[in-house]
């Protein structure tokens, strides 16, 4: 018997049938698995096709250069045929400055907010990317490039240009040598930002910051002698006295001796995204410490402190932000001394900070309650006093687990900054857009300005939520 042919080696596996591989398999599994799924896919495809069919030509025919809406329409009709629809983004050219800085902010001084915005990221970098030299370098170079470009575009004076570049270069050097020292710039940034935005004498913010120096010095020397809380109290009293009595005369004298000042810009000239960012960033910055104190007060076992905190938090959370803005605009003036001169923006900032702090306190309360009881007991067993236990054991963990919620409350606050239009501040969404829509040239435009403002808000908010996802992953220490 002869065996004509015997295979000695294994055949390679055949490819699966067409329906079981590649795109077809994926489609069958993900879009066409059941009858309901087929129906949903058809519906969704029809919807996407409908939207694309209507919106795509509109975007495709966009006009960027025109003097008025009528001219835009004419250009679209000429290029795409009669009856074609096309977006008209040409309004951005005359109104760009108003959208970003407000229509009243002095044009010659627009480099100041631009500089303050760039330095904001330099100030945030040591907190956002603590100790990561690579990320710090990336951020600093991006900011330096941004400042080079925007300061040039905003035609900043040469001296400001040179000083800004020097500052960034110095900070880059510090970040390479001792990155942890960068926090000092973060601490000084509020005063610098205030001076850049509002202008006036440089000595008022410097002397005001010196008040914090007084506070710290007294606390530092007194705390070994009289303990933590009394020393902090003494420091606060001294600082308040400094601000009440020493601040104004000292700043005045210094200004007379060495005059350094910028054009003063009153708050009612602020507008556009500058206003939204000022309110958002101030609210976020100041609400964090107040919110932490309120949350701790609410957890405290002292009934009076607890009751006051609960009343504050629940009252503010129970009313809409608009009523608080009404308070800022119409009522707060009655509660301050008649001779005090608080302008509208400052009053709005106070109320917005309270609002954000109450929400933050509620978020933190949840995380404080979520910490295992053993953490508190361990802190007690180590012999830590209340503030040390909170600072070293409780708050780092509580803040960490509440990051997503804190960030989403910040996103909410940033979106809510648009409501200040109710009290006649020119925020971008209604304030400036309304001006554009009232302009004779642009009367009848509505999709484009709203889409423009909406996209910018979306970028900010979406960016923040992505960052919180990143932070959540980075700070995760449990192994799952």
């Amino acid at each position, binding site marked *: 018997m002869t065996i004509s042919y015997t295979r000695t080696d294994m055949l390679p596996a055949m490819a699966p049938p067409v329906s079981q591989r590649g795109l077809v398999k994926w489609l069958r*599994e993900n879009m066409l698995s059941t009858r309901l799924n087929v129906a949903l896919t058809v519906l969704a495809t029809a*919807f996407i096709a409908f939207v694309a069919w209507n919106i795509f030509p509109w975007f495709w025919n966009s006009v960027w250069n025109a003097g008025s809406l009528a001219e835009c329409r004419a250009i679209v009709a000429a290029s795409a045929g009669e009856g074609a629809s096309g977006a008209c983004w040409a309004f951005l050219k005359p109104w760009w400055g108003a959208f970003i800085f407000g229509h009243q902010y002095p044009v010659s001084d627009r480099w100041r907010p631009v500089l303050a915005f760039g330095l904001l990221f330099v100030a945030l970098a040591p907190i956002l990317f603590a100790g990561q030299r690579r990320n710090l370098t990336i951020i600093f170079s991006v900011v330096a490039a941004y400042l080079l470009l925007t300061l040039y575009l905003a035609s900043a004076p040469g001296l400001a240009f040179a000083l800004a570049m020097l500052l960034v270069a110095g900070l880059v050097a510090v970040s390479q040598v001792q990155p942890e020292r960068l926090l000092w710039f973060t601490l000084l940034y509020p005063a610098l930002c205030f001076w850049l935005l509002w202008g006036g004498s440089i000595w008022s913010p410097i002397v005001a910051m010196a008040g914090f120096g007084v506070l710290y010095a007294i606390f530092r020397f007194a705390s070994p002698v009289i303990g933590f809380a009394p020393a902090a109290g003494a420091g606060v009293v001294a600082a308040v006295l400094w601000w009440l009595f020493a601040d104004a005369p000292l700043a005045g004298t210094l200004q007379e001796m060495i005059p350094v000042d910028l054009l003063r810009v009153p708050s009612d000239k602020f507008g556009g995204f500058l206003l939204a960012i000022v309110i958002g960033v101030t609210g976020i910055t100041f609400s964090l410490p107040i919110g932490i104190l309120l949350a701790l007060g609410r957890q405290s*076992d*002292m009934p009076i*402190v607890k009751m006051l905190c609960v009343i504050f938090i629940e009252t503010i959370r129970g009313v809409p932000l608009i009523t608080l803005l009404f308070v800022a605009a119409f009522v707060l003036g*009655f509660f301050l001394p008649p001779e005090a001169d608080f302008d509208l923006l400052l009053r709005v900032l106070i109320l917005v900070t309270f609002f954000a702090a109450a929400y933050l306190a509620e978020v933190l309360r949840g995380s404080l309650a979520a910490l295992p009881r053993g953490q508190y007991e361990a802190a007690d067993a180590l012999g830590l006093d209340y503030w040390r236990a909170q600072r070293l054991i409780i708050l780092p963990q509580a803040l960490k687990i509440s990051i997503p919620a804190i960030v989403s409350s910040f996103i909410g606050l940033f979106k809510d900054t*648009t*409501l200040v239009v109710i009290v006649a501040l020119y925020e971008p*969404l209604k304030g400036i857009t309304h001006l554009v829509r009232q302009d004779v040239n642009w009367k009848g435009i509505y999709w484009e300005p709203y889409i423009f403002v909406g996209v910018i808000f979306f970028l900010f908010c979406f960016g923040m939520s992505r960052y919180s996802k990143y932070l959540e992953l980075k700070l995760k220490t449990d192994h799952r």
Partner: protein
Amino acid sequence: MTMAAELPKENFRLSMLIFDTRYRSYTIQAVVLGLFILLIVWLGYNVDRNLDERGKELSISFLWQRAGYDIPQTLIPYTNDNVHFRALLVGLTNTLAVAFCGCILATILGVVIGVLRLSNNWLVSRLMTVYVEVFRNVPLLLWVLLSYVILTETMPAPRDFRVTDEMAAAGEAPAAAMSFFDTVAVTNRGTNVPSPLLERGFGSVDLGFVSVNLTFLAIVLVIAGSVYSYRRLKSHARTVQESTGVRPVTWWKSLLILFAPIIALMIALGLHWEVPVLKGFNFQGGILVAHAFTALLLALTLYTAAFIAEIVRGGIQAISRGQTEAAFALGLRPNRTMSLVVLPQALRVIIPPLISQFLNLTKNTSLGVAISYSDLSGTLGGITRNQTGREIECVFLMMAIYLSISLTISMVMNWYNRSVQLKAR
């Protein structure tokens, strides 16, 4: 065992108020209370001085003065001869109307989107993710303004609905047409919808201090009766199922019990619809729903639905996969698994954050002030405050009302929450 007795009996010294942790909390509380009282006194003193300077004093008697302004949309009878308090009530009912409709619509839309986001259809789940991200990350005010502007500026004017003789002769259609079988007309002035009219109402009885509308009472009674009978039917069916194992057929009885009585009542009352018709330059008859209402409701629904969708998705995902697998192993079909195993457990996770979304929606109705919707902040906080110049009273009254609405909602919803939570012993 005699530790307590061995503690040194110290005499109380003043320094212990600061250095002894047993007494320190009293010191701190006394200081805090003192500072708080000082703050209150200081604020009160400032208010007093400021009011003196402007020649005003605090009083809420202005609420009983003639309001003198018109409100475009009112749910309760109101003319400009009514007092400010009546205007306040109109604003309050307008606020509650938007909040109520918004909560229901946002919940429905949110649940649909949340479930679709979990769908294993790639295209649909991506589409819903885009919806959620877009609506969550853009200010609510943008949606309010955009829907209002689109409604008021792109909708046809009433005259576009007119069919002139020449057009009828030439067989041309008018520029705009009514929708829903010629019953609803959306114009740039508002949405005209048909209004229900009753031929034979029961009238009302005056009880001296309040007049009771008998028709309304009859409708409420009939609906309550139907719901009660329906629940009886269900509980009877359950008893039968538990004793015999066979569930009696109830669906046609349920439909009959729920709908027959109310339909019979409506026929008895002679219900018919008054359809808006174009007369002269505007539509007559029916109800004119202001665009401010529609826009606010639309925006609140779309915006809040994005948040509710996330809550629903999170709630369903929080139920472990093992629950579904166990239900399948018991032989339950997918829809029974969903309704009997997954949803009851997911509800416990969903309800607490859902409550806070309802609260947010209710508070966000105050954004109507941006499009001149006459809600509480538009009437009391807006025109009344402006006309009477009583800022402190109006603003604080408004805050108190919003606060009590919020507290009521959270109380009711927390009560509901307790009734569905797991009863742990």
